[in-house]
């Protein structure tokens, strides 16, 4: 579980995050949602420690990352996997070398064990032998995201961060990625935090949702509570799309 308490972050004197507190649970897909420029990515980068929050606490199962020494942060990061918006695969390495990389860097496994683990992770995201020797530039965006997931789970992380995993993907591939993230989260009981503004993704895989608006926490709750909430910010964000307005009207008519 990751708990964020009263986080404040500014850039060049401009405050981006205003006193944000939230809890991200084990075995659940926790989503940070909000319009572009609302501070989602900044919040995620603060939680991971890529940006240093000025005030507050960020507790990884009770361990505050903000009061840790550099070496402790490094050790903690070995429990973290991350899927970047653009996959961030190492383009000089093949698919399997990308997944092998964290294993070679940190694990005490033998060469054969490492290769087996890398193959297992790739097959877990439905990428089989014929793709293993290809370079990232030779595979599609969706496959790159899957390789990035395989790399992220190679060291059995306790925490998984996904920054806009569906950006640049078609709806079908997005669905595949969402399902994978959800399955892996439940299978390994990982604390997963997904940063998204894709409503399909929210309705498909979000278990616990945090809405950020202009750097403030606007709403927090479960997916099921979205349609019943009368929170103004949530209504404006979710029902900006005509499709979701229709869904809400249909559900309202059904109830009548």
């Amino acid at each position: 579980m990751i708990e964020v308490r009263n986080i404040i972050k500014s850039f060049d004197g401009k405050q981006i995050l205003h006193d944000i507190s939230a809890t991200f649970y084990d075995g659940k897909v926790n989503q940070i949602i909000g319009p572009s420029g609302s501070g989602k990515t900044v919040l995620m980068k603060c939680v991971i420690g890529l940006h240093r929050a000025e005030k507050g606490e960020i507790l990884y199962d009770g361990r505050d990352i903000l009061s840790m020494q550099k070496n402790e942060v490094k050790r903690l990061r070995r429990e973290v996997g991350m899927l970047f918006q653009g996959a961030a695969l190492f383009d000089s390495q093949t698919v399997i070398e990308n997944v092998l990389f964290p294993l070679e860097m940190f694990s005490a496994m033998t060469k054969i064990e490492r290769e087996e683990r890398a193959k297992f992770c790739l097959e877990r995201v439905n990428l089989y032998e014929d793709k293993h020797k290809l370079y990232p530039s030779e595979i599609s965006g969706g496959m790159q995201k899957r390789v990035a997931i395989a790399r992220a789970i190679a060291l059995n992380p306790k925490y998984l961060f996904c920054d806009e995993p569906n950006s640049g993907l078609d709806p079908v591939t997005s669905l595949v990625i969402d399902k994978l993230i959800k399955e892996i989260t439940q299978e390994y009981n990982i604390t997963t935090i997904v940063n998204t503004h894709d409503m399909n993704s929210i309705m498909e895989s979000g278990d616990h949702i945090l809405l950020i608006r202009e750097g403030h926490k606007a709403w927090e709750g479960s997916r099921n509570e979205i349609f019943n909430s009368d929170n103004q910010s949530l209504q404006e964000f979710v029902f900006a799309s005509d499709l979701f307005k229709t869904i809400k009207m249909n559900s309202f008519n059904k109830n009548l």
Partner: protein
Amino acid sequence: MLMGRTFTRPENRKMVWKQVPVEMVKLGTDSIILVAIISIFMGVIMTMQVVLNTENPLLPRYTTGLMLRDTYLLEFSSTIMCLLLAGKVGSNIASELGSMRVSEQIDALEIMGINSANYLIFPKIMGLVLFMPVLVTLCTGLGLLGGMGVAKFTSLITVDNFVYGLQYAFIPFYFTYSVVKAVFFGFIIASVSSYYGYFASGGAIAVGKASTNAVVKSSILMLLMDIVLTDIMLT
């Protein structure tokens, strides 16, 4: 600060050192053709220019070989070659690291708990610095060979005169001076270019800017260092 992070103890020494020969090939071996072509042609041209433009009968003919040798040892094989390498290698390093920064590959390394500066920059610096003596030797050798070609295949100067000039009043320390300078310059090229690439932010324009800055700044720094090293080693 970046150099402090670059030269700290790596998380996995074997993985980092494994990158050194890779970088040596990429930055050093791949530059051999460029260095060879420029060295030979400049050797030929400089020999011809010296012969054609020194008409004073008091100047012995062997002066040509002597001038070519000392020019190569004192400046060409270190300073001029490194200025050329700053263009090729420096822009290569800056654009590679810059692209890794903007495509979040460096962030990915950091998230894994890897000291990205150490993993990415250390092998580049070591690879280039360790390969510089090879390039200096090659540059000097091929330059003098170019001059020898002029003596052999034209009637501008005899081979005997040229070879006598090459051997006349030879100071072996000049070779050491040349290698030491090249090692320093290799460090400047790799570290300055890495700095600009590593801290590039934005998109393609930022990568291009980092690449340009890397070449310009490392060239200026090398020329300043040339004065300092010459003052320390030759005066």
